[in-house]
C-alpha cells in the first residue's frame, strides 16, 4: 500500500494538476463529445501531456504508440486518410525535428487533417536541455506547404486554437507550452483564421508576439504605459497563414515593430514578419526579440526566461532599444 505523499511531493500521476494551462487533454474530451471522428495518439506521454484524461473518457479512441514518434505520425496519416481527425501529441522537439519528414511527406504533401499537439515547445523544458527544446519548430513547419501553424499563448488560447482549427482540411501544427504559462486570456478566445489578436492598442510601437512571448509583451506594455508609452500588442496566434494586413497596418500606424518569440532568431515569427515588410517595401524600425542563435543554457524555465529577456522587463529593454 502506498503511503500518503508529502504535500510538496509530486509524481507523474499528479504532475498535470500542477500545470493548469495544459488544457489540451480536457479540450480533446470536449471536442470528442461533439465529433465522433476524433482519435488521439500519444507516444508514451499520456500522463505528462494530459491526454490521459481523454484515455479515461474515450478509451476506444485513444492510441498509444509507445516511444515511437515517427510511427505515430505515419499511423495518424493513415487514420486521417480513412476518415478520422487524429490529434497526435508529443514534445514539440520530437514532433518537429524527429518527425519533420513524416509531417512533410505523410500529412502535408498528402493534405491530410492531422492535428499535431506539439507541447513543451520552446525552452519550457528548461534544464532537460537542448534535446528537449524546440526552438526551430516554427521555421520547420511554416516551410511546409499545406501546413497551418498556430501558437498558443496560454491555456485558454490552446482551447481556442483547437476549436478554430478543427475544420482545417490539411494538417495543423499547434504549438503549446508546458502548461505553466500565466493567463493572458480570461476566457476562451474565438480566433479568426489567419488573424492576429489585438491584446492592447497603442501608437508608440507594436509588439507582435507569439506563444509564451505574448505574456511578456503584455507585461512590457503595462510597464511602459506607466511612463505614457502606449504600445500596440498583437498575439500572433496564427503564424501560417500570417496576418500580413495586421503587420502592414502596424508598420503604417505605429512606425516600429518588435517581434517576440521563444524561438531561434532564424525562420520564426520575426522572419515571417520581416519577409512581409520587405516584400511590401515598407521601411520601419524593426527588431526581432528571440533566443540567441545558440543552444541555451541549462536552468529552470523561469530562470531561462529572465536570462534571455522573455519577461516584461526583458521586452521593455528591447522596446527601448527599438524606439530609443
Amino acid at each position, binding site marked *: 500500500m502506498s503511503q500518503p505523499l508529502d504535500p510538496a511531493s509530486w509524481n507523474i500521476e499528479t504532475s498535470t494538476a500542477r500545470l493548469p494551462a495544459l488544457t489540451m487533454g480536457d479540450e480533446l474530451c470536449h471536442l470528442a463529445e461533439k465529433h465522433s471522428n476524433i482519435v488521439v495518439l500519444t507516444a508514451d506521454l499520456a500522463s505528462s501531456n494530459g491526454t490521459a484524461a481523454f484515455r479515461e473518457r474515450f478509451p476506444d479512441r485513444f492510441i498509444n504508440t509507445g516511444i515511437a514518434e515517427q*510511427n505515430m505520425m505515419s499511423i495518424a496519416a493513415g*487514420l486521417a486518410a480513412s476518415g478520422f481527425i487524429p490529434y497526435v501529441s508529443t514534445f514539440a522537439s520530437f514532433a518537429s525535428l524527429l518527425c519533420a519528414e513524416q509531417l512533410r*511527406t505523410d500529412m502535408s504533401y498528402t493534405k491530410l487533417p492531422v492535428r499535431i499537439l506539439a507541447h513543451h515547445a520552446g525552452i519550457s523544458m528548461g534544464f532537460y536541455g537542448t534535446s528537449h527544446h524546440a526552438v526551430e519548430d516554427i521555421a520547420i513547419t511554416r516551410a511546409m506547404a499545406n501546413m497551418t501553424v498556430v501558437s498558443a499563448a496560454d491555456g485558454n488560447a490552446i482551447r481556442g486554437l483547437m476549436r478554430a482549427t478543427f475544420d482545417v482540411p490539411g494538417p495543423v501544427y499547434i504549438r503549446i507550452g508546458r502548461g505553466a504559462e500565466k493567463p493572458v486570456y480570461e476566457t476562451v478566445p474565438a480566433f479568426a483564421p489567419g488573424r492576429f489578436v489585438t491584446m492592447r492598442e497603442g501608437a508608440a510601437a507594436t509588439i507582435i508576439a507569439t506563444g509564451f512571448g505574448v505574456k511578456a509583451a503584455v507585461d512590457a506594455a503595462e510597464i511602459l504605459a506607466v511612463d505614457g508609452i502606449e504600445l500596440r500588442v498583437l498575439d500572433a496566434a496564427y503564424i501560417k497563414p500570417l496576418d500580413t494586413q495586421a503587420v502592414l497596418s502596424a508598420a503604417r500606424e505605429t512606425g516600429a515593430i518588435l517581434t517576440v518569440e521563444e524561438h531561434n532568431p532564424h525562420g520564426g515569427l520575426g522572419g515571417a514578419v520581416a519577409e512581409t515588410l520587405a516584400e511590401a517595401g515598407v521601411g520601419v524600425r524593426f527588431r526581432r526579440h528571440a533566443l540567441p542563435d545558440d543552444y541555451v543554457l541549462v536552468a529552470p524555465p523561469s530562470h531561462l526566461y529572465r536570462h534571455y529577456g522573455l519577461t516584461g522587463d526583458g521586452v521593455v529593454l528591447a522596446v527601448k532599444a527599438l524606439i530609443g
Partner: protein
Amino acid sequence: MTSNSVLERNRDVDRVVLARRADWIRLETIRLIEIAKSGHYSSVFSCAELLAVLYYRTLRLDPTNARWQDRDRFVLGKGHAAIGLYPVLADLGYFPAEWLETYTRLGSPLGDHPDMNKVPGCDFSSGSIGHNLSVGVGIALAAQLQKRDYLTWIMLGDGELNEGQVWEAAMAAGQYGLSNLIAIVDANGMGLDGDVEEVMGIEPIADKFEAFGWSATDINGHDVDAVVEAFDAGQHRSRPHVIIARTRKGKGVRFMEESPHWHLGYLGPKDKDIAIAEIKSRLER
C-alpha cells in the same frame, strides 16, 4: 451498398492469365520508361506477379469509385515501383489510359513515386522508404475502429526493412492485433548498391516479424500458383501477416537478372528490343 462495378475478392481468374498480366506489366514498364528515359525497371519486374495477382484477383475494388470506403486498401511502400501500378490502374478503369502517355512530363499526375491526390486508385502516397507500413497500421486501425471489413495490404521492399520505422510499425501491428493487415515483402535481395545481405542484412525476415507477433509465410514470388495460395491464405488470420515473396530483381529479362546494376537505368533501343523480345516470346507461347 455495393455497385455492379465492384470487383470482389479472390476472383476466379486463370493462372495463365495472371502470369501473362505480369509480363504485360513488364512491357508497359519498359514502354513508359521510354518517356522518362530513366526508371526502376528491375524493382517492378521483381513484383510484377505480386501486383498482377493483387489487382486482377485478390483485392476487393471498385474502379468507378476509387474512394469507396469498403475497398481493400493497397499501399505501395516501395513507391519507386509505381510505374508498374499505373498501367494496371488505367487498365482497370481508374483513369484514362491516355494519362500514361504523360508519365513524368510537366504537370503529369504520374511521377516516379505515386501521389494519392493525383492518381485515382492510389491509396497512399509514397516515396520515402519505411513510412508506409506505419500508414498501413493507421488504415487498418481505422477499419477496426469503424468496424469495416476491408483489408489493408502493404508492399515493402526487403531493403526497406533496413529502415527503423518499419519495425516500429511491425511492433505496433502486433501490439494492436491487426489481423486485417497483410504485408508483402518483395524480397528481391537487392538494393541500389547490391545484395541486401551484404549491404545491411535483414534475414531471417520471417523470424523477425514473428518475434513482433506476426504470422509469416515464405513463398516463391514469381510462382503465380504460390502467390495466389499465399494471398488467399493471408486473409482473415488471427494476427498481422507477412508474406515474404522471394523474387529476383529484374526478373523476366535475363541480362537484368544477371547484373546488380539495374536498380535505376534506361534501356537504349537495342537493349530495349532484346528485353521486349524476351518477354514477348513468353507471351506468344
